[in-house]
């Protein structure tokens, strides 16, 4: 069965157009990486000389390293908070099947629908009152409201493929509910859970807008530092930081994608 009714030769324009769109999509990402190895002060493409000076700059700058450290701490802690909360909510609401549970599911994904700028202003206003501005705890809580929905959605999708009767069998054989969950359900949800955790980690690491409001000075996150760096003058060190972030995001989210497919 040969599909296209129009011969290939007569739709070359479509292939060319699609190729251009794909180039538009990937070009920026693939231009930043070679440029980060440039030896010159002004970033040109292709770079005239190659060096690792911007990576050295990054590794020798106490400010960049401090910001990286804060971002990594926030991302790890956000993952540790959001993953268990997201799993518990996904499991409970999926099994409870009441109208109230459906409403709670909607409520828990709502933070992803609210424009981040509103969350940023709101969280800032709240944190000023309770003294959480510029604290790691504040950052982790704020990032968790974006990370929990991702974990919940991913794990709920995994639970839909899972037959809850398996857990009932375990319980009828004398396992407690917790034991049945831990030994029967959880291992089968492993892929969804790891994918959800990776989403949570990247969500925190890449978050910019809320961090603009609640982290500053020595408490700045990596993205917050990059944002200020881009506004003032474009420092080529950012190309090095960006390349590292590209590699990390693509590796982690690519893994998450594969895990979800193999569910």
């Amino acid at each position, binding site marked *: 069965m040969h599909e296209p009714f129009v011969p290939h030769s007569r739709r070359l324009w479509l292939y060319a157009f699609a190729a251009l769109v794909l180039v538009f999509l990937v070009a920026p990402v693939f231009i930043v990486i070679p440029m980060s190895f440039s030896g010159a002060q002004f970033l040109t493409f292709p770079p005239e000389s190659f060096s690792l000076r911007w990576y050295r700059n990054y590794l020798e700058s106490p400010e960049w390293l401090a910001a990286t450290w804060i971002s990594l701490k926030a991302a790890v802690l956000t993952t540790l908070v959001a993953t268990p909360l997201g799993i518990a909510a996904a499991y409970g*609401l999926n099994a*409870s099947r009441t109208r109230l549970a459906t409403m709670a599911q909607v409520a828990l994904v709502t933070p992803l629908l609210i424009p981040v700028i*509103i969350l940023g202003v709101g969280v800032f206003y709240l944190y000023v009152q309770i003294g959480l501005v510029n604290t790691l705890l504040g950052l982790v809580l704020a990032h968790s409201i974006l990370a929990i929905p991702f974990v919940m959605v991913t794990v709920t999708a995994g639970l839909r493929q899972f037959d809850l009767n398996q857990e009932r069998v375990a319980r009828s054989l004398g396992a407690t509910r917790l034991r049945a969950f831990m030994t029967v359900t959880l291992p089968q949800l492993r892929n969804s859970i790891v994918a959800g955790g990776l989403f949570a980690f990247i969500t925190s690491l890449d978050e910019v807008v809320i961090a603009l409001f609640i982290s500053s000075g020595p408490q700045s996150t990596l993205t917050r530092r990059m944002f200020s760096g881009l506004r003032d003058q474009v420092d080529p060190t950012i190309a090095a930081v960006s390349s590292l972030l590209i590699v990390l995001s693509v590796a982690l989210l690519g893994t998450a994608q594969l895990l979800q497919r193999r569910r």
Partner: protein
Amino acid sequence: MSATGIESLAARRAGRPDANAPELAADERRERLHLFGLSLPALLVIGIVAFLPTAWLFWLSFIDEGSFSLAHYERMVREASYLRIFWSTFEISAVVTVIAILLGYPLAYLLSQLSERAASLLLILVLVPFWTSLLVRTYAWLVLLQRRGVINDWLQGLGLVDAPLRLVHNYTGTLIGMTHIMLPFLILPTYAALRTIDRDYLKAAASLGASPLRAFWTVFFPLSLPGLMAGALLVFVLCLGFYVTPALLGGGRVLLVSMKIQQNAGMYFEWGAASAMGVILLVATLGIFWGLGRLVSLDRVMGER
């Protein structure tokens, strides 16, 4: 299932009335309540950190000098500067959506006609930028588009322009950057929808004498509209509240709702004006998402990430 459950099953089989039906119902209610309780920690965090401050902003938007008032909203309607901001936000979101459709639909269409294998390989090229941090992509455009940037270098090198073009820190740069970031949000749902369209309809149209062009416009395109609409609405609504890219690529020449909210709250501490704008943005956003939710399942769209 508990022991009582099995007994009652036996009782029902024997045709006897279920003696402990009320207890069983109570048991089940308790179990559902316990299961619901598992979501409480997540609800608590999101309730306190996301909903409470949002409700607070709602409240603040109606308070002026200590008493209830619509003054902040009146300002939004009366002052030309605010109206202009709302208009340019709407306009740029609409323009980005239209460009995204024009660029994204043909690509999604072509991908949907390839074999699954070929399509998923090419989709990686859509997913890689999608996965890359927003800030990194905005940075890339800044570097590409600036006066001494790559694009101006090439244009001058090829002799196409004499002096470098102003491509960034203005409307053009904002448009290019926003379109780039939004494009995957259009392509992914549209592609998914196009895949599900049954090719036999096209064959039927062809066998009835329709030219390929006619078959496309009268059969395929209408069938693809729900998916395309979902993608377009998603792009539009995400543009309405977009902050990072327009703030960096607009260079202060493009002022959108999100940027005005940030200025009012972060620089001038004008909470009333910031919150009134925020409420208008929030109502518009949630309204559109509600409409979108009627077109497609929302967690499918959000779970894409």
